[in-house]
């Protein structure tokens, strides 16, 4: 525990906890809309922003926020049109994003260590100003996702009904897209571009195995994300493992534990309680084939 006396460890821990809480709060809407991998895609696009930032000697995170937001809006516009060719357009955007990022990083004076820091996260190098950015943006994401939960639930659950209810569906969709871009860029520091989706999606996948409602799923997913982030940083500090990977592996481990426990629980219940046999309606045809 004495490792957490060091300010850089404290910053790493606080940053990870904020992201662990905020990422699943947004992720639940992405999972419900079957956009589970969108975080990955936007992460690829954000990498171009990182490259541009390094090349232009500007803050890579700030440039990445801008580039990822533009990318997210472009993806949302393609999605809203519902064209089949949208799939291909997204693939182009994703691969263009990561190739552009690698190219721009290569053109700049940055080393491959810099690129690795963004690909896989570098929590321990979190500076105080980084932490303030993560804290402010993380709080903004959390407040938005919680205050707008009824409306965001409605559009994620049944977009047409939401439109007939007169909700500003297009604005809310853009809001989700922009929030995804912001979450991706702040989480980039912690777990890296390649592992961001895990923090948004895995806690939700774990929670929804045992919860009954949307609100309880959201609360449980946030708790799981918080727990995975905290214990991941602790494991990383004590066992000297990469923090990003530790956080994600812990999140996946809790998914497996809950999945196995849930399966056992259902098996026990099936054995103790009589199975519910649905009563079919009577046949309305004459079955005369002896």
């Amino acid at each position, binding site marked *: 525990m004495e490792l957490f006396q060091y300010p850089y460890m404290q910053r790493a821990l606080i940053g990870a906890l904020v992201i662990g809480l905020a990422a699943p709060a947004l992720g*639940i809407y*992405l*999972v*419900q*809309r*079957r*956009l*589970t*991998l969108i975080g990955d895609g936007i992460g690829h696009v954000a990498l171009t922003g990182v490259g541009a930032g390094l090349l232009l000697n500007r803050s890579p995170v700030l440039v990445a926020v801008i580039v990822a937001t533009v990318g997210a809006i472009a993806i949302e516009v*393609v*999605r809203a049109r*519902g064209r089949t060719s*949208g*799939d291909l357009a*997204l693939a182009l955007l994703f691969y263009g994003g990561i190739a552009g990022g690698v190219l721009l990083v290569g053109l700049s004076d940055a080393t491959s260590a810099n690129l690795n820091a963004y690909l896989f996260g570098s929590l321990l190098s979190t500076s105080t100003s980084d932490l303030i950015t993560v804290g402010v943006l993380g709080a903004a994401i959390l407040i938005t996702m919680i*205050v*707008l939960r*009824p*409306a965001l*639930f*409605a559009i*994620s*659950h*049944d*977009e*047409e*009904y*939401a*439109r*007939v*209810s*007169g*909700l*500003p569906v297009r604005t*809310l969709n853009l809001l989700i897209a922009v929030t995804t871009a912001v979450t991706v860029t702040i989480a980039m520091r912690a777990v890296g571009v390649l592992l961001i989706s895990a923090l948004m999606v895995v806690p*939700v996948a774990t929670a*929804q195995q045992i*919860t*009954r*409602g*949307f*609100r309880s*799923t959201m609360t449980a997913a946030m708790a799981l994300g918080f727990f995975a982030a905290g214990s991941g940083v602790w494991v990383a500090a004590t066992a000297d493992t990469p923090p990003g990977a530790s956080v994600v592996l812990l999140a996946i481990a809790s998914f497996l534990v809950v999945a196995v426990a849930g399966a056992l629980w259902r098996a026990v219940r099936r054995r103790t309680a009589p199975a519910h046999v649905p009563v079919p*309606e009577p046949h*309305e045809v004459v079955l005369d084939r002896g």
Partner: protein
Amino acid sequence: MSTPVIIVEHGAVGYDGRPVLRDVSLTVTAGEVVAVLGANGSGKSTLIRAILGLVPLGAGSITLFDRPLRQFRQWQRIGYVPQRLGAGGGVPATVREVVASGRLARRGVLRPPGAADRAAVDAALRAVGLADRASDPVATLSGGQQQRTLIARALAGQPELLILDEPTAGVDAASQEAFAGALRDFVADGGTVLLVAHELGPLRPVISRAVVVHQGGICHDGAVPDPAGHHAEPDHDHVHPHGPDEPAGLWSN
């Protein structure tokens, strides 16, 4: 003379240049219960989707509560019941959470739910006989109960006009009865109903007028027509599969 609630004048709708509705005119006045009947693919669902602004009109005009559809903003006056509840990504939601969505048209996006919202949700759940299932996940309900959840969601908004897309297709008898009862109560309180149906079943006594859509036009507007052929047999249970769902792709919702 009652006030018109829905006016469709010479409405035409096409998908990708293929006409679905050619020239449809229809007026629904306050207090009526109008059934839109027709074969699969006749365009009857398209008609109500056009009225709700979910598909664009190629020609003609639609007026809702004396307002052109384009300028219509009082969506809390309309309760929409879609054909079925989409599964989405599978995040669980309780019956109450789904029904509570029906209050958003009235409450707006930012205001948190209050006592009036909770009371309306409770009343809607009772009206469809699902009060005891309020905290169950909707995914564990039968098809008929899910349909009743969607009707409760529409009723929770306390609308003046209910628009329903095949509310009884493939729904068990108990749910059809519960639904007919909820509809009778709604109409008794002065509500107006426009519903698309394939078969009327227990709803038949509630319907005041029937409109039959055929080949993109309206071929009958008046009394409920009697079923003919094998449809007329007393035990005929008119349930058959509907068109394939839209492909559930990564980017579709």
